[in-house]
């Protein structure tokens, strides 16, 4: 109880801090220097209709590479962190309902298709590699919900993930030699503004990102799926520090 009171008092004080922020924050009327530059030159320099995509993949490409790296890191860590030593017997799982099974059979291909569409068109319309990848992973969630014991080939996932990441970095380095710098998308010609094959390397990079994010998120999910929680919260058969 004391703890809660202290927490409450602290949060009151924190709220005070936030109030000070709100009081002093002035909502802008115009785009600032940076944003105005993107609005004005983004289309011609990068050739992407979706300015957010232009920023994400090109102007701030290093950030994006960083966030892909973070997903990769998480997936890698989980792969040795959550790895089971041996199959510890079969899990008994209640069979999923007819409804779920049918729905997933129908929907999953379309979900995957939508995901691919979203990342392929990332430079033109709302969405992009991350969004598309997340959609693909959500399809996998549905599959796993339907059949929790389904074997997902983590090796295949890892291969696709590594290959797309490796190519992504490789294309980025190519930018140093063929264009203006690391991750410059102007390695390829800009093409016609607003069409699928435009914005230089951007769509290709976004596809790679999409593949990578999709496989990484799927990888994360399968790692958690593989975790076997012993039946009954406090079964004594697990000794401390026994795992891996």
């Amino acid at each position, binding site marked *: 109880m004391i703890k809660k009171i*202290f*927490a409450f008092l*602290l949060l009151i*004080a924190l709220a*005070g*801090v936030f109030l*000070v*922020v709100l009081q*002093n*924050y002035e909502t*802008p009327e115009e785009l*600032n*220097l*940076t*944003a105005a*530059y*993107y609005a004005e030159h983004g289309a011609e*320099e990068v050739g992407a209709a979706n300015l957010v995509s232009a920023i994400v993949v*090109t*102007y*701030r*490409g*290093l*950030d994006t*590479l*960083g*966030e892909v*790296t*973070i997903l*990769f*890191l*998480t997936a*890698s*860590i989980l*792969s*040795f*962190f959550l790895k089971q030593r041996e199959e510890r017997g079969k899990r008994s799982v209640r069979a999923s309902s007819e409804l779920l099974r049918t729905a997933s059979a129908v929907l999953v291909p379309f979900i995957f298709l939508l995901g691919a569409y979203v990342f392929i068109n990332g430079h033109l319309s709302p969405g992009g590699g991350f969004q598309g990848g997340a959609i693909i992973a959500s399809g996998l969630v549905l599959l796993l919900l339907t059949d929790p014991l389904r074997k997902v080939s983590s090796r295949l996932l*890892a*291969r696709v*993930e*590594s290959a797309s*990441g*490796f190519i*992504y*970095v*490789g294309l*980025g*380095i190519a*930018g140093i030699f063929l*264009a*203006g*710098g*690391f*991750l*410059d*998308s*102007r390695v390829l010609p800009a093409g016609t503004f607003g069409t699928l094959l435009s914005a230089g390397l951007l769509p290709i990079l976004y596809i790679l990102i999409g593949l990578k994010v999709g496989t990484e998120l799927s990888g994360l999910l399968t790692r958690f799926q593989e975790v076997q929680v012993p039946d009954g919260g406090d079964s004594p058969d697990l000794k401390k*520090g026994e*795992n*891996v």
Partner: protein
Amino acid sequence: MVDQLFFNPIYIIGIGLAAAFFLGFFHRGTLAPRIIMVAVTAAFTIISLAWMQAFLLQGQTAEHGQAAAQVFTAGFQPPFSINLRMGAEEAFLTLLINISGLLGGIYLLDTLKKMGSHAVSVFIILIMGMNGIIMTRDIFNLFVFMEIVSIAVAGLIVLQKETNSLAAGFKYMIAAGIISVFLLLGIILAYAVGGSLNIDFLTAADLPGAKAGMIALFFLVIALLLELKPFPANGWALDVYDAAPAGVSAILAAAGSAAAYYALVKILPLGSSSHYTLVAAAGAVTFLGSNLLGLKQHRGRRLLGYSSVGQVGLLLIILGFSEVLGAQRDYIAAGIILSHSLAKAILFWLAGMLKQDGLEAWAALRKKPILLILFGSAVFALVGFPPFPSFFAKWELILLLNGGRFYLWSAVILGASFLEAVYLFRWFGYALKMDNEKLAEPEAPLFRLLPPIVFGILLYGAGWYMGSILEGFANFSYIPLAFILFLALIDRLPAWIKNTVSIAGVTFYIIDLYPRLEGDLLRLIFAGIFLIGAVLTLLSGYYYKGRRAGFYPLALTMFAGLAVLIEAANLLEFFYGWELMTIGSYFLLIRGKKSMPHGYSYMLFSVGGSFAMLFGFSLAAAGAGSIAMSALTGVTVLPMLAYSLMLVGFLTKTASVGLHIWLPGAHGEAVADIHFMASAILLKAGVFGLITVLLGMGAEASYTGPILFVLGWIGALSALLGNISASFQESAKRLLAWSSIGQLGYIVFGLATMSHLGWLIAISYSVTHFLYKGILFLVIGGIALKLGTPYMYKMGGLIKRMPFSFLAVLIAIITLSGVPPLVGFAAKWITYNLIISEGIYYQGFIVLISGIVAFLYLFRMIYTMFLGQLKDNLRTVREINIWFLIPVYLLLAAIMVLSFFPNMLLRPVGEMLSGYFPDGAIAWTGTLGTTRLGYYDGGAIMYVIGGIFVAALLFFFSLRKRTQQVKQFNIFYSGEAPSRPELSHFSYNFFAHYQKAIGVLTLPLVTNFWNWLSGILHGTADFFRRIYTGNGQTYAYHLVLYIVVVFFLQRGGM
């Protein structure tokens, strides 16, 4: 110029990520991933090295010469795209990080093998991310790299899957998450106000000009500050250091702290001076708090955590004082970072080799001496001893802070450093002396041994480099140190070879030095004491059969330090020599069997003393505007404090009352020749320092009165206390140790009078004390070595077995007790003159009393050891080692010469002193000296006393027929039943009757005082460390509370 095609800094990111992604193709068990890791980190290192070398070659012109390289990404100019920078600072820090990565990776090879290729990717990405933090110029990109690093760290913590590691990792993730929330808030607000994410453009945007900008800055600064683990919101960080695999903790401490530090360095220029103040204050609280709490810590890894956090606090102080430190800030910070990173990595790596984590268990390091050497190097580097980089950094820091009148800050820095020294040296003492028989040998295969060894070499190299680029130290001669290194390298050879080499080296040095000192008698005298003393002690070293591992480099380190004191061209060199001497003497003193606590207290008093000295020197330099030795003359900035601190610093080495408690134990446990070095020679370094300071201070200014008054009393009381305590000792060696305190008391007393005669006494005592104490230590030490005990009641009648020793001791004692005819009497005679002519009767009375006491215990010593009955078990004992007797008789010859011709010493010294104290000089005609009060003729007295002695001898010889031989066991106990064997010996508790009367004077009041102080510190530490409850939620609470409190404090100050 660096070739951008090959050494483009962006390759660090490109190659790192490509390699990490590529490793996804591999599966566990293969060697390839680890080869790739080593290759990639080596490539990182080479890139940094190429840049570092380019910046170094351009030398000091980096600011106005070659600008830092900018790397643009995406082919657009900042602020519209992210850019990286590679300047001198970046090159230095990335080099540090990449070397740590390379070696740290090698250290982790087998752990990573077990965990497979994914763990290798994580490791590569960690190092890449740290490089990114250093190089990026974009605040959001900075955030991304910081998240990469913290996630990678969270992943590597669990390479060791124990509950504690898991819990630590969870706490770490929660803390990192909270910090990142506030960092993001700061970034987005800064963007809203400044319209850019680029650091250079935000600097131009004047964020502090707008209120919202100030808030943005607050969030940015506080988040980056929290990354640096400020006390007390740092419980999570301690857990990580504690529970992560040692190899990972090493990288965190070495590279992680440097990266986080530089993130704050980049952001702070956006803010105003109030942010710098905040950082400095947070740093001071951290440095002090974390080192205080470290006192109670008894596990190695966690203690390293406390120390790491503390060192980062020191960095924060430096950063906060950027404006004051100016161009030297980066020099100072680099010194601290180098020492801290290299030393901490070494220590964590060592921790990883040990099976147990208690501080006592580190004694296992002794089973592999190279590990012990590394441990010692790291400890001394952390405390700031030469020759390590932190020594120079600390010197510059304190000098500049005090130059800017920030006295309190420098006091806090030194105080906290002292606390750090307290626990580090306790720990090191354990490693040196604790029983290690039951401990497992450290596991040190080559791949684990290599990283700390390389870092150890770098630590020394960096120290050399930092010194060479510092004005005021550039001309320092490293030849003696190179000689010591040579001795260390030939340490495997037998002792007699090393002994010969050492003697040759010192002799050569003396020949080389002499012309430089001609005409400067004061230095010549002390150079004589230090270096001729060195030759004599080394001469006695031939007694040792075997290797005597480690003895020679350390003994020579001490003598090199003493030589530097003599030759010092400025305060910095002087201080360097002082610290060098301290290191050497510490290791010599702690060699004794039971010397752990004594060596420890010696070190603490030394460190405390040298910090006081440093503070005093910096005040002197602040007033004079230079660090030349002349700065000690007429100090203008806080002169009373400055002089007092310097004097206190030197009094720790003369073991004057109040600061003496280390001496009896440390000297009493030392081996014979070391005892000689420590007492007859080493203590004189303190005297030399006192003389140097007092000459600068003079006696004219008003503040000198109280200082000299106190100093005089300290001297007199030391004389009394030392001599009385000596009387009650049972161990001959302890007796001599206490006696040294008393003798040094005379010297201090003489100096404090600031008069011609007083100084004459001090200097002549310095010489004669060196002579007769040298004799006593060597003989008594030799006897103790021979008999295996220093206790006098176990001896007796040794005159028959050791006549040469007896004669030497007899003469030394006559000299010491100051009775005619030997040179000791000359000193006494001048003392009487002094007391009467200066009218200092109270102190004078005490000094005279102590002279009488000295006679008592000396009489007892020679009587119980050499006279009386020879004990049964000693009937076959033989004369002490010839190698002890040779130097003894050389010293004896010197005494005899000086006794016949005291004018040989006193006259030139008097003439020299007349330059400083013209009044009251002694007039000399031949061997006849005259003062206002009378005259003294050493030669004549010798003849008279000699005549009387011969007459008495003849008289007793004529009575010899009437002597009655007493049988050995013809003893009566007079009704007292001896309950313990030693009670049956008449010399046990010889002065019991005096002890009943005046024993109250020797109650260990001073010891009790220091124990009480230490108890209070430890109690405080124990109380406050309970804030680290171990609960992750509490730590989260601390973090948010820290933010809120600082926010309202800052706004209150705005």
